[in-house]
């Protein structure tokens, strides 16, 4: 089960490694298209586009219609979502780290005083008088 999941993820990544295939996917994001319609959008032959579609189909990123002539290619969300989820983990990690960094910066000592830092009026020695009174 887990194995299958992992293999499909590398298939997805493999299919996505080609710019033409990524472009096909973003075209299909707007709705299903036939091979002919896709060919018009690229400077490529129909066999070349068909080959890309086969790779995408094998990776489960698209499905093809059954009709012999018009076999519209349609985007499939699930495998793509797996891949984005995987990247999303990294993004989350950074977002969380960045949040913590922001909080930590507040507490961090600026032990190398910069030139401007001089005016802030902190008492240099404890005020014994006010202490004894409290």
């Amino acid at each position, binding site marked *: 089960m887990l194995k299958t999941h992992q293999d499909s993820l590398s298939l997805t990544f493999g299919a996505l490694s080609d710019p033409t295939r990524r472009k096909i996917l973003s075209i299909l*994001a707007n709705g299903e298209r036939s091979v002919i319609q896709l060919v018009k959008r690229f400077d490529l032959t129909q066999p070349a586009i068909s080959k890309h579609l086969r790779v995408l189909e094998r990776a489960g990123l698209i499905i093809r219609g059954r009709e012999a002539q018009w076999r519209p290619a349609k*985007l499939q969300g699930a495998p793509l979502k797996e891949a984005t989820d995987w*990247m999303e983990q990294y993004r989350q990690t950074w977002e*969380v780290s960045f949040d913590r*960094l922001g909080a930590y*910066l507040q507490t*961090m000592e600026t032990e190398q005083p910069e030139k401007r830092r001089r005016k802030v009026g902190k008492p240099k020695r404890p005020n014994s008088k006010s202490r004894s009174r409290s």
Partner: protein
Amino acid sequence: MEQLKEKQLVVSRSYDAPLEKLWKAWTEPEHFMRWYGPKGFTTPSCEIDLKVGGRHLWSMKSADGRQMYYTGVYKEIVPMQRIVYTDSMSDAEGNVMSPEKMGMPAGSPSSMDVTVTFAHEGGKTTVTVSHIGGGEGADYAAMGWEQAFDKLAGVLAKA
């Protein structure tokens, strides 16, 4: 910025803090350990040998005590501007482990290049982190899928 296309992941944040402070937070272990890591994880150990070719080795520990180690080498250091390092899963001694062995999906890059840039403007310091998969997963680098995904995200949300 043609390079941006090739980045898998770019995350950026601006802080009301001096650049020096951010640089320290990234380059000194005692500071780095205080904030780095995913949700629910702490960073119990951290070594940083801040020089080109120098090694880092830090760990992450989950609430249930699971500990993971990450190591890599600094490839570029431009003080107060830019750090580039590799990042791979490793054992406690810093021997690189394959991602599959560590339970990550097959095809995960065994090493990532992480670039951190620092910029100070108008009293704010902006830190930008970008990842590029390297090593055997080098074809990841050319993927540039982020833009495509941005567009697809809307479709997926409806699916």
